[in-house]
């Protein structure tokens, strides 16, 4: 029972019962342990993002169960699911999904707002994370003025603000050049070494074939393939 996250017979269907019904995941069962770096690979439309959203409690599976630390979470009511999401997962989205018009620091600290921690504590942690990612001097800069690599580091800092044990990143290097992709991989490895579970989705060979990766899971048409 060393698994931190378990997926049991997950099936995910979009637009169920409608003319455009689409099955994104079929009978997916997986488990992830702490302190591992996993990459989900596969072509576009293979179900990588759907698997990440189900894993991260951003969406519920149509069938199957999701467990975090042995606790069934996929049937929790929305407010409790949001708490699990906030405490357990940090997300780095493909387009970074930062909120324009706000500073890097404000973007970073946003996930901590619902926790009710004192403002000073949250801001100090946000500044520390930005400094750790070499963005301290840009903390008060509006995010839309930052470069792609800087925006991604802001997104990483945001994912870490609540100190979650699991980091999920969807196509994190899709918009980055080789140097920045290597830098991201370096960060992912550091996070793994800190004891976090890092799960990336990617079809970038620089990521999929990198030696730092502990485990590779390949998806095709919503199924896990060898």
């Amino acid at each position, binding site marked *: 029972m060393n698994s931190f996250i378990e997926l049991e017979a997950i099936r995910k269907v979009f637009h169920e019962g409608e003319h455009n019904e689409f099955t994104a995941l079929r009978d997916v069962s997986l488990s992830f342990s702490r302190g591992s770096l996993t990459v989900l690979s596969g072509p*576009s439309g293979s179900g990588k*993002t*759907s698997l*990440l*959203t189900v894993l991260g409690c*951003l*969406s*519920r599976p149509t069938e199957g169960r999701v467990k975090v630390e042995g606790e069934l979470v996929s049937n929790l009511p*929305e*407010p409790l*699911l*949001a*708490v699990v*999401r*906030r405490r357990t997962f940090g*997300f780095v*989205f*493909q*387009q970074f*999904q*930062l*909120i*324009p*018009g*706000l500073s890097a620091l*404000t973007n970073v600290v*946003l*996930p901590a*707002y*619902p*926790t*009710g*921690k*004192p*403002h000073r504590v*949250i801001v100090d942690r946000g500044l520390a994370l930005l400094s750790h990612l070499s963005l301290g001097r840009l903390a008060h800069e509006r995010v839309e003025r930052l470069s792609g690599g800087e925006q991604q580091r802001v997104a990483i800092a*945001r994912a870490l603000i*609540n100190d979650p044990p699991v980091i999920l990143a*969807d*196509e994190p290097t899709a918009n980055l050049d080789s140097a920045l992709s290597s830098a991201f991989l370096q960060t992912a490895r550091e996070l793994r070494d800190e004891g976090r579970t890092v799960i990336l989705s990617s079809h970038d060979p620089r990521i999929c074939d990198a030696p730092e990766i502990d485990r590779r899971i390949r998806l095709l048409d919503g199924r896990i393939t060898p």
Partner: protein
Amino acid sequence: MHAWINRQSLLVDYTLSALARHAGRNLAILAVYSCLVFVLASTMLFSDALRRESRALLSHSPDVLIQKLSAGRHAFLTAADVERIGPLRGVSRIEGRRWGYFYDPAVRANYTLMAVASDPPARGSIRVGEGVARLSGLAKGNALALRSPEGPLHVFTIEGVFREESSLVSTDLVLMHPEDWIEFFQVASDLCTDAAVTVVNPAEVRNVARKVAERLPGSRVVLKEEILRTYDSLFDWREGLLLALASLLAASFAVLAWNKASGLAADERREIGILKAIGWDTRDVLTMKLWEGALVSGCAFGTGLLAAWIHVFHFRAPLVAPVLAGWSVLYPRFDLTPSLDPWMLLTLSFLTIFPYTLATLVPAWKAAITDPDAVMRGSE
């Protein structure tokens, strides 16, 4: 408790930064919203003040007024009529009053000419309302010439002008000596326009009125409470008219706010999706939107109410007075006593804050209950 306060303070902080990001649009909404509150609040404050004022002024008026009717028209009472009422049980005082209307073609306005029995002006002198003095451009010591209905010109010296505070009832008033009044209107000295009756026991007013009606068949007996009711109805009707128009504005504004919110811009929907994806729940998003609604509507409510207060109690409501106070040439100028009725505030907030907050909250709620994975799927 600390965590709750911290959470609210952080949500307010975020709301403020969200509002600042669309400063132009939010300021425009704030301006329109404030104008709406201003119109509604001006109407309600002014009507309320008028009602208070009329009640205060009428509190000194006689309990019962007696008018004589002849063929359904207002006719003069005789001294004998008045004498028949005096001995009625419950009547403490009765006074025959002489007054009449006079149209002054020079200023194209109607005056009310009234004879006063106690402490009257000297013969040939008058005391005039503020409106009369203003319209004729005269002041104390000046002469006012009035041509009587019979033709001769009468010249009176103004010995006093009523203060503006009493203008609600005195603006068109010209008070004169009884002999001057009789001479001006050429009315027999034993006739009077109506009679004012004071009743010993206020609870007996209706009984006294019934006895008067029996004693003087064909007379019209008007009670003070009926006049008050008439004033209330009049102001209610006028206020209702303006409020109906303003409510149309409010409804249009609510539709606009709804439209703006329900057609949540793509970036706003995306923002809600991001917030949910990074750990906010529906309640957090709604609380943030509630704060947004509360801040905008609170600011607009405060600004509109303050502006309405200044408009009504400092500038005498020039924008709503023509509708609410009357259509006369002689608009009364009067100072209203500032007052704020909690019930009125509640009604006003219900008419303004409630629709806006609802129009902001419901579409946000619809956006907030969708799965946050749309953010990720949108990026796939």
